[in-house]
């Protein structure tokens, strides 16, 4: 039977603004399937975003949503979670929103280990503002502001999140659509700050400048570079050159911020 996405979509909001072939729609479907699998209640789920193509996602999802300032999704979401700890808070955003403008908020949300899920759609570029290079654009690739190739090395979002202290880090791709909802389910169930990076395609501003002939070619590239974590264990360093690991990359149990903060309140009350 066809999956009923309509239940989670705000009436009258489709078709969405994303370009033909943009993977954000595939990620949104994955998120909806994950929310349905977990039987989340609409009034107890908040989807928070900043600014950008990916950050338009909360506009289409029918639950509590918050569309905030550029890069500040983590800050606003922390506020939501502190005020209503029973809410499931899910952040969505792109690579530019999450790691450049919101880079500071992102690493400190990771460090704090507050119980939220951050879905970063990494399409290697600032799509909405006209294709400027982002911190995730790989070295040598072209963007509207680096027409002769980007000299900077790109961020590895997953490693950044692990280094900053996130307790659940996973990576998927828009090609592996079946895996997206499974990763998101696991991330939402994890107690602590979970980061799910989804490698995405931007055919309009990234693909055209970097000689990808079609959306299909971009999708097939995602298929080629992705190596599941288990398969990677058996591969040599040479074979892993240029590949990207997918699946659950890191998981640990650490004290969660809301619970720790409740203890601080208790201590402060006892001190009086």
């Amino acid at each position: 039977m066809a999956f009923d996405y309509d239940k989670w979509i705000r009436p009258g909001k489709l078709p969405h603004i994303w370009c033909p072939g943009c993977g954000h729609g595939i990620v949104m479907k994955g998120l909806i399937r994950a929310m349905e699998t977990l039987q989340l209640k609409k009034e107890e789920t908040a989807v928070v975003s900043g600014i950008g193509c990916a950050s338009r996602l909360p506009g289409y999802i029918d639950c509590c949503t918050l569309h905030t300032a550029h890069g500040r999704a983590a800050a606003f979401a922390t506020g939501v979670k502190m005020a209503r700890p029973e809410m499931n808070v899910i952040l969505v955003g792109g690579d530019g929103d999450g790691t450049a403008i919101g880079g500071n908020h992102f690493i400190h949300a990771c460090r704090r280990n507050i119980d939220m899920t951050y879905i970063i759609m990494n399409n290697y570029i600032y799509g909405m503002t006209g294709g400027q290079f982002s911190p995730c654009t790989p070295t040598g690739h072209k963007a509207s502001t680096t027409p002769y190739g980007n000299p900077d090395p790109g961020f590895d979002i997953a490693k950044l999140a692990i280094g900053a202290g996130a307790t659940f880090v996973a990576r998927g791709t828009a090609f592996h659509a079946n895996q997206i909802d499974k990763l998101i389910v696991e991330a939402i169930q994890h107690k602590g700050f979970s980061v799910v990076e989804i490698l995405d395609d931007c055919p309009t501003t990234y693909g055209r400048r970097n000689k990808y002939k079609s959306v299909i070619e971009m999708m097939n590239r995602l298929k080629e570079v992705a190596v599941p974590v288990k398969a990677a264990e058996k591969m040599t360093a040479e074979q892993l050159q240029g590949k990207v690991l997918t699946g659950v990359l890191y998981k640990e149990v650490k004290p969660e911020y809301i619970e720790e903060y409740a203890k601080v309140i208790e201590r402060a009350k006892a001190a009086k």
Partner: protein
Amino acid sequence: MEKTLPKIEIIEKYCKGCHICVEFCPKDVLEMKGFYVSVKNLEACIKCMQCELRCPDFAIKVITE
């Protein structure tokens, strides 16, 4: 046992003509007709749901019994 055919519902208002469904269909069921996707050969459909899963625009539904 007789093979039951699914109903492939295409919402043209949502379709942006990105070709993803046509390309990833393993049985070549779909084709592009002008700007939109349309069903070419329903008999070949094996209900793998790849088109529904991958469509970024919520434009395809594969309805099976």
